[in-house]
């Protein structure tokens, strides 16, 4: 039940060589595969329903991506649709709207990297300095809460507070000012969605930093205090180095995620603020495919994004290893 057990997970699924399994291995190895199949039939039976679901809902659509190379028509089906080569990809690259969506995506992710990323760290440090356990647990429970709200709910809440008929606008108007509507203002949209992300996820984001801070031995702080270090120096020389691996790792992961922004968050607000600032790659794929019916084109755009994201994630993982940090699935 320790957290350490979770962290053993590695991209290479090699667990047979660990612990007690090692001593048992020579005994097991010489069994024929028929014997092992018979012995483990109930284990295989347990796994099979999930395998079936994954094959149907993950692997079949993965293969379905071949329609990016076809002139796909739903009436003909992907078995009979003619192959047309890289046609759809060429159209994607030459499409100014797609380029616009990529620029929007990168703008939003970069902005959030700068203005969202430090907030959970600061909050974790602040919360760590609250010494009364009950108060700390209380604050923690409250700031985690919005993570469990749906995006529909969060966007609606923001509309009720910051929208044209919202609480703040009404209050300003009642006091003689002129109202405003943040929800439909394209020039403040970046701030708005970052604010929403901070409200929803910043509290939850502190968990990983608090866990990293908790691993620091209190004796280190005491020794530093004895040597005359004040609390800022203790933070700078003890706490921050302790969370540095986590910070670096999350940063690299964010870089790997550059092409993904909150799809639900943006599609909910695309109508009110307009596609000019809110069209990102994912929403673009949705509207080109499901709404406009240009299936091959949308699949090509989505595939392109997926491929680049994969390269970014694997590259980021590699970078993490090179920096001496553990990989994606060994975080913290």
């Amino acid at each position, binding site marked *: 039940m320790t957290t350490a057990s979770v962290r053993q997970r590695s991209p290479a699924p090699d667990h047979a060589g660990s612990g007690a399994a090692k001593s048992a291995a020579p005994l097991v190895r010489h069994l024929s595969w028929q014997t092992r199949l018979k012995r483990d039939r109930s284990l295989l039976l347990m796994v099979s329903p999930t395998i079936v679901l994954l094959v149907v809902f993950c692997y079949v659509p993965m293969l379905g991506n071949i329609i990016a190379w076809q002139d796909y028509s739903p009436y003909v089906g992907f078995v009979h649709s003619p192959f047309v080569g890289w046609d759809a990809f060429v159209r994607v690259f030459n499409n100014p709207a797609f380029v616009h969506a990529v620029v929007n995506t990168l703008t939003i992710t970069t902005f959030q990297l700068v203005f969202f990323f430090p907030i959970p760290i600061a909050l974790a440090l602040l919360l760590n300095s609250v010494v*009364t356990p009950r108060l700390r647990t209380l604050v923690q429970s409250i700031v985690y809460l919005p993570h469990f709200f749906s995006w529909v709910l969060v966007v609606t809440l923001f509309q009720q507070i910051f929208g044209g008929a919202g609480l703040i606008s009404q209050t300003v108007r009642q006091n003689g000012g002129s109202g405003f509507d943040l929800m439909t203002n394209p020039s403040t949209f970046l701030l708005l969605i970052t604010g929403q992300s901070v409200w929803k996820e910043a509290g939850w984001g502190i968990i990983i930093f608090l866990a990293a801070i908790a691993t620091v031995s209190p004796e280190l702080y005491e020794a530093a205090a004895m040597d005359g270090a004040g609390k800022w120096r203790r933070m700078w020389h003890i706490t921050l180095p302790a969370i540095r691996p986590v910070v670096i790792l999350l940063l690299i992961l964010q870089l790997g995620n550059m092409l993904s922004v909150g799809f639900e968050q943006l599609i909910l607000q695309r109508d009110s603020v307009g596609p000019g600032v809110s069209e990102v790659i994912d929403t673009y794929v949705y509207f080109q495919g499901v709404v406009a019916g240009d299936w091959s084109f949308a699949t090509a755009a989505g595939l392109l994004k997926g491929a680049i994201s994969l390269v970014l994630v694997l590259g980021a993982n590699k970078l993490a290893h090179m920096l001496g940090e553990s990989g994606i699935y060994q975080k913290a």
Partner: protein
Amino acid sequence: MTSLITNSAIASPTIKRRRRNPNRAAWEGQPTRSAAAMKFGILSVVVLSVLFPLYTVVLTSLSTHAESVRAGGLVTVPGELTLKAYTEILSGGIVTRATLVSVGITVVGTVLSTVLTVLAAYGLSRPNSFGHRKILFVFLITMFFGAGMIPTYLLISSLGLINSYWALILPGVSAFNVLIVRNFFMAIEPAILDAAKIDGAGDWRILGKIVLPMSRAVIAVVSLFSAVGYWNAFFNAVLYINDNAKWPLQLVLRSYVLQGVTLPGSGGPVGVDTGTVSGLPLQMAIMVLAILPILMVYPFVQKHFTKGVIFGAIKG
């Protein structure tokens, strides 16, 4: 420095001294008054920014329409209170049906995915079992390659699952949860399981009698995450549920509250004073309905978060 370390009981009674927090170690300096005030201020702002919106929404949903008109929108000071908004949306009609749909999807989906997750996790957790590495690889691949929205949509529609709730339930089983639970199972002392095996227990019995009772916390957390996922899911319903009589609650929330579409059969257009409780209180009651289940289960699972049980469950 020494004066700070001195216990207040020993200190001279003439000097007025703030009481030390007993949780603060003796070597830690006492924060200055201004630092403590600033910390308190920031934390209050953070906490209030979460609680205040919830407070006004709940209060408005409990207010009369006249009250919300008088307030010019959301009600912040309690006035005339009524439960009428709730009786109105829960006495049949679109919102009631959508709530039942969402509850159904959440319950069926959570039970199904938790059972499948636990079974798969145990099936993959025994060392040297037949084919477990290849199967694990099949699971891991799905975490690195997303299939993409369009092919998934085309698959669901060619399976005839458009307008079927199975389209919302079945894809919710995730390899990620299986791997989390598997890791907890693998951390169980193998000697215990070997002993049970020597005593003649089969895999089903070992799972039911030994492994499950030892893994309650992780199963609680994984099932909470899948329940929250099913309850909050919104875009899969946009894609797969075209028939708005079958909408789950999140879609109703978007349509009738966020987009302000008229809610049929609720005594007039939303936002127009019709003498009854309608308009804003009604909309806010729909919002409360969407939050309520989360607020209800949250306290039971929250302690696992603060204890860090789900540490491995957090994606970047």
